[in-house]
């Protein structure tokens, strides 16, 4: 379909696909909001999540969503350990040192994935991965809907966790004033570790959805990191609502760009949009 009448499909697809970008960017936004650290390995953590789900599928026949029962604790635990024992020490030196450590982790993860799973592109292909469905005139791949639902569920969980639990409030407090948080009896080292671990647990979920939506290789982390940057630039770093809006806008930019200008142009439109936001309102829509 061409013309404005056919817009409903790319718009719906864009919003749903945006859910995946929200999921990928959430972990990045959380870590930055709490620790002021740009985790340049974030995309690679997500891809590790994708590969874990891939292995669970191909070797054990486990559905990707089911494999999260193992994948989430795994990435949570590794994330906790990395922050507690590695990044914590780097922070004591300087923020740049922590950034470099993240960069090192990125290289290690990429090569680790390359060695184990080879550079060939992989995908998560359970039976429902190829299904699509229609609402009236709109025709959407099922996984895109799953992306969107997953984003909403995770965002809701995260928001309630931060609002209602002591640990959640402690994470929020520590991100607003670290010194005051320490003086309130909060073990900020441990709280930071939990925040990072939670961000990596979200990355595990994002990895599953990513693997269902797109093919991936050991170096895909970089492209999705750039997309995640785009999301937080548009939406504003550290704001969950901003991350959501940013993700949806980016998804829309991609699908509408592809619709009007062809598939080759879709990422171009998305990136140009990021540039425009950087030029006009660099702190993003909800940024402070």
């Amino acid at each position, binding site marked *: 379909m061409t013309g404005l009448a056919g817009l409903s499909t790319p718009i719906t697809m864009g919003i749903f696909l945006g859910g995946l970008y929200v999921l990928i960017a959430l972990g990045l936004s959380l870590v930055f909001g709490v620790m002021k650290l740009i985790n340049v390995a974030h995309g690679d953590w997500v891809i590790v999540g994708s590969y874990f789900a891939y292995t669970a599928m191909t070797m054990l026949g486990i559905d990707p969503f089911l494999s999260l029962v193992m994948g989430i604790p795994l990435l949570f635990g590794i994330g906790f350990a990395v922050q507690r024992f590695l990044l914590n020490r780097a922070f004591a030196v300087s923020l740049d040192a922590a950034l470099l450590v993240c960069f090192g982790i990125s290289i290690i993860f990429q090569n680790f994935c390359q060695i184990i799973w080879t550079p060939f592109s992989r995908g998560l292909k359970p039976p429902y991965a190829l299904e699509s469905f229609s609402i009236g005139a709109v025709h959407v791949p099922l996984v895109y809907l799953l992306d969107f639902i997953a984003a909403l569920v995770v965002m809701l969980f995260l928001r309630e966790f931060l609002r209602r639990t*002591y640990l959640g*409030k*402690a994470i*929020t*407090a520590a991100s*607003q*004033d670290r*010194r*005051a*948080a*320490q*003086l*309130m*009896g*909060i*073990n*900020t080292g441990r709280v930071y570790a939990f925040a990072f671990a939670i961000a990596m647990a979200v990355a595990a979920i994002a990895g599953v959805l990513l693997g269902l939506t797109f093919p991936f290789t050991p170096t895909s982390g970089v492209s999705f990191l750039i997309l995640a940057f785009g999301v937080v630039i548009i939406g504003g770093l550290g704001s969950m609502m901003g991350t959501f809006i940013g993700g949806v806008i980016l998804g829309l930019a991609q699908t509408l760009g592809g619709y009007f200008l062809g598939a080759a142009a879709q990422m171009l439109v998305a990136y140009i949009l990021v540039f425009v936001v950087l030029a006009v309102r660099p702190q993003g829509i909800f940024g402070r």
Partner: protein
Amino acid sequence: MPQETLLKISNIDVFHGSFQALWDVSLAVRAGEIVALIGANGSGKSTLLDTISGLLHPAKGKIEFEGKDISAVDPFQVVELGITQVPEGRRVFPEMTVLDNLIIGSYNRKARSKREPNFKMVCELFPILKERKNQLAKTLSGGEQQMLALGRGLMSDPRLVLLDEMSLGLAPIVLNDLYKALREIRAMGITILFVEQNVRRSLREADRAYIMEAGRVVLSGDVAELREEEEVKKAYFGV
């Protein structure tokens, strides 16, 4: 009447990097007292409070609380042991509500079970906080933020409260309310060590005082005695 020595600081040296901020400082606070720590900017008062709170550690000497050596303890553990600092500039969590600020005050293990009674107590002490409980902390006035900071500190169920420059930027009327609250807090059995630049006011509100200059304690004693001290009169009262 013998009183328990709650906090005992013995001959500590404290460094900021390679810069020595405290020289051979000794200080004691007895249970139930209100003690003032007076001095100009840069005299080391805040450094001393930060060292008690565990944000800094003495290079020499020791700090004892309730008889236990706490010189090397982490900040969050110091709170659990019963010492809470209300920091300079209040430092309430700006994007959190008044209620959440108070709740997070009871984060440490020992304070959690006492959250409800402590919350009631804080609301009675500072009714304005109850009124504004759903407002974001950053929307409060300076005086209200100071009450919130104090209330938040009390939520951690302390035996000893360290108050850093409570009066900064506040009007005398607001200060009167705050000092009245301090007396009520003392009446509840909580000991107070407060840091102040305003000598007159401090000597009025405290039982004993330490005067610091350039990282050393230069004078100490009961406030009545101190007011008569020639040096104090000259330096601070222009006599």
